[in-house]
C-alpha cells in the first residue's frame, strides 16, 4: 500500500466508524453526506485540479472495503462508481449523492422540442434510488451504446422493497423523461455492471472481515462449560474456515481492482464477484453459529453485516449470473484452456 493509500485508509476507516447508525435512529443523510463530501471521499476518481483524489480502483477499493466493514448506510460507493463512469464518458458530474442502475425495456429518443433526449424505461431495485439526486444508467439506441444521467425526481416510484439490511432499493419508472446528459459509450451496460460488481465485491470483503472480528471477540469473551468458547477446537476450526473465506475474498477484490486499473478486467471481476458470493453462505452461517442467540439479537451489531452480505450476494450479479458469465468466457478460450487464459492475463499485467 502506498503512503497515500494508507492515509486514505486511516481517514475513511475512522470516518465511517463514526457514521454507524444505531438501531432506531433515523438515517441522517444530509449531515453525514456533507461530512463525506467536504472531505472529498466521493471524488476518488476526480482530477486533483478539480479538488479530487485522482485515484485508482485500488484506491476506491479501500473506500468500498471500509464502507462494508462499517456497514455504512450511505450511497458513497455508488456515487464513486457513478462519477467514474461519467468521467470516462466525458459527462459533467451532477451534484449530490448518485447511484447506478441498469434498465429494463429502455428507450432513448430525441425530445419532442428537438432539444436533447428523452428516456423511457423501468429501473428496478435502484440502490438508494430516491435518496440520490441522479441515476447513471445505460441504454442501447440505433445499435449504439449510451451512458446517460437521469434525475431521480423524474422517476415515478413503483415500490421496491428495501434490501435485507434495510437499504433502499427503489423501483423507478421513467416515461419520456428528459435526460440530464447522454454520451455514446461502447459497452456502457457491461462497464456499469462490472464496476458495480467490483464495488460490491470489496464491500462484501469488508463486511466479512467485520463479521470475523466480531466472532473472534465474542468467542474470546463468552464462557461456557467453564472456559471461553475460543478454547473449544470445534469453535477454532469453524473460525479458521471463516478467516479463510475472508482472506480469499479480500485477495480476490484486491486483484480485481488491480486488473481494472490495468485495463481489461472482464475475467477478474467475474471471478472475484463469484468468489465473494460463494463465501457468503458459509461465512454468515459460521458467524451466527458461534454467536448463539446473541447474534440474532436486534441490539447486537452482527446482523448489520450479515444482512448486507445476504443482500449484496444478489446485487450486480448473483452466483448463477457470474458463474454462467465466467463459464462462457472460459469455454470461449480456444487454445490451452483456462490455464493459458489466466496466465496470459497476469503476464500482460506484468508487462504494464
Amino acid at each position, binding site marked *: 500500500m502506498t503512503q497515500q493509500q494508507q492515509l486514505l485508509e486511516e481517514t475513511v476507516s475512522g470516518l465511517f466508524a463514526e457514521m454507524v447508525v444505531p438501531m432506531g435512529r433515523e438515517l441522517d443523510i444530509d449531515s453525514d453526506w456533507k461530512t463525506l463530501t467536504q472531505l472529498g471521499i466521493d471524488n476518488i476518481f476526480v482530477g486533483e485540479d478539480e479538488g479530487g483524489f485522482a485515484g485508482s480502483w485500488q484506491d476506491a477499493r479501500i473506500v468500498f472495503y471500509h464502507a462494508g466493514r462499517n456497514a455504512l448506510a450511505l450511497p458513497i460507493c455508488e456515487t464513486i462508481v457513478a462519477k467514474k463512469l461519467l468521467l470516462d464518458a466525458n459527462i459533467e458530474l451532477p451534484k449530490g449523492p448518485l447511484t447506478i442502475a441498469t434498465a429494463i425495456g429502455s428507450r432513448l429518443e430525441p425530445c419532442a422540442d428537438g432539444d436533447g433526449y428523452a428516456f423511457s424505461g423501468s429501473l428496478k431495485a435502484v440502490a438508494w434510488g430516491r435518496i440520490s439526486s441522479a441515476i447513471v444508467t445505460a441504454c442501447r439506441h440505433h445499435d449504439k451504446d449510451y451512458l446517460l444521467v437521469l434525475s431521480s425526481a423524474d422517476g415515478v416510484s413503483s415500490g421496491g422493497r428495501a434490501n435485507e439490511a434495510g437499504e433502499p432499493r427503489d423501483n423507478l419508472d421513467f416515461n419520456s423523461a428528459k435526460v440530464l446528459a447522454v454520451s455514446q459509450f461502447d459497452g456502457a451496460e457491461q462497464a456499469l455492471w462490472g464496476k458495480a460488481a467490483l464495488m460490491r465485491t470489496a464491500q462484501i470483503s469488508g463486511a466479512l472481515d467485520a463479521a470475523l472480528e466480531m466472532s473472534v471477540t465474542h468467542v474470546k469473551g463468552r464462557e461456557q462449560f467453564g472456559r471461553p468458547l475460543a478454547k473449544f477446537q470445534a469453535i477454532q476450526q469453524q473460525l*479458521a474456515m471463516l478467516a479463510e473465506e475472508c482472506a480469499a475474498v479480500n485477495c480476490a477484490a484486491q486483484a480485481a481492482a488491480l486488473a481494472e486499473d490495468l485495463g481489461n478486467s472482464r475475467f477478474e471481476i467475474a471471478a472475484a464477484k463469484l468468489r465473494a458470493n460463494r463465501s457468503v453462505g458459509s461465512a454468515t452461517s459460521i458467524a451466527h453459529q458461534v454467536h448463539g442467540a446473541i447474534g440474532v439479537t436486534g441490539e447486537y451489531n452482527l446482523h448489520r453485516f450479515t444482512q448486507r452480505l445476504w443482500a449484496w450476494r444478489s446485487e450486480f450479479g448473483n452466483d448463477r449470473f457470474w458463474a454462467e458469465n465466467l*463459464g462462457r468466457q*472460459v469455454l470461449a478460450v480456444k487454445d490451452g484452456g483456462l490455464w493459458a487464459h489466466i496466465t496470459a492475463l497476469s503476464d500482460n499485467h506484468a508487462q504494464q
Partner: protein
Amino acid sequence: MQNFNFTPLKMPPDVASLRRAVRSFLDTELAELKAVDKAQSWAGYSADFSRKLASKGWVGMTWPKALGGSEASALHRYVVIEELLAAGAPVAAHWIADRQSGTLLVRYASEAVQQRFVPAMARGEMFFCIGMSEPNSGSDLASIKTKAHRVDGGWVINGSKLWTTNAHRSQIMIALVRTTAQGQARHAGLSQFIIDLSSEGVKINSIADHLGARHFGEIFFDNVFVSDDMLLGAEGDGWNQVNSELALERSGPERYLSSYRLFAELLESLDGECDDATTQTIGEISADLWTLRQMSMSIAGQLAEGSEPSLEASMVKDLGACFEQNLPHSVQAGIGASIPSDRDSDLSETLSYLLMASPAFSLRGGTREILRGIIARGLGLK
C-alpha cells in the same frame, strides 16, 4: 484482530518469455504421456524427465551458480513450477530436492557438504526425501522416537520413518530425529540430519497405496553412522528449522493444482459447447482457481521480499486442498448432458484416478485440522 496480507503480486515483466520456453519444452517432452499419468501431478515420477528438465536449468533455479543453480528469482522459479504442474509433468523425482532440501542445504550446510550434494541435485541426478512421520507419530510430529546419539566423529541413528514419499527412489534423506530425550519442552532436542540411504544399517521397503502405486515407504535405521557434518543447522534447533521449511512449502502452486488436469480434460472434451449447468460448474471452478492463484502468487511475492507470511500460507494450503478435493466430485456430479460418460475416455480415467488419489491432498504437508489450528492460533484463539 490480525489482518491477513494478500497484496496482489505483479510478476516480473520477463516471465512471459520464460513461460513460453517452458511450454515449448513440455509440448515435446510430454507428447506421449497419457492423460491419467499427467493427472498424477507432483506424484508422477520420471528420473529421466527430471534430468532433462535440469539440463534446461530449471531445477534448483534459485541456488548459487557456484552450486549449479542459476541464481534466478523465486518468482521465476514459481512460473516454471506452475507451468510444470498445469501441464502434468512428472516432477516427483526432483521435487523435494528442488522445493526444500536444496534450499535447506544452501542455508545451513558447510561448503564441503554443499559441494557434495547440491550440484548433483541441480543436475537432476540426486534425489532427496524427507523423514518426518513415524509409525506412532503423524500429526503429532514432536512425539517422534527415532534418535541419534553422539559417537566419536559423528552420530549413530536408530529408529524408523514411515509414509516417506519416494523413500525407495531417493539417494538421500533429510530426517528429523531426537538428539536429546523428550523433556518438558516437547519441541526441544530435535535435530535434522542428512542421511545417505546407501549407508550400512539402512533398510527400505516401499508400500503400496490403495491404488496399488508405490510412491511412499518405510525406512529402518539400525545403528546408522553419520559424520558430524551431516548435522544440518544447529543441534536441537530441528523443530524451528522444520517449521520454517514447512511454511515455505504450504502456499506453492502444488497446493491448488493437483486436480487441474481433470479440469483441463473436461474443457477439452467439451470443446467450447455445453449446457447451462456445466457452464456454471466451469465458472465456479474457474473463480476458485483464479482466486487461489492470486493468493498463492501474493505469498510468493511476500516470500521473495523476505517476509514469512506463514499464517496466510496455511490458509492457502487448506483452501487449496479443499478445492483440489472438491473438483473431482463436481465433475462427477455433473456427468450427463454435456460431460461424456464414456468410461474409456481420458476424462473418465482421470476422474477415477483423482477421486481416489485426492484424500491425500489434505493430509500431506500438514493435515486440514493442523492447519486450521495454526490459523486459529493466528486469530488469537489458542
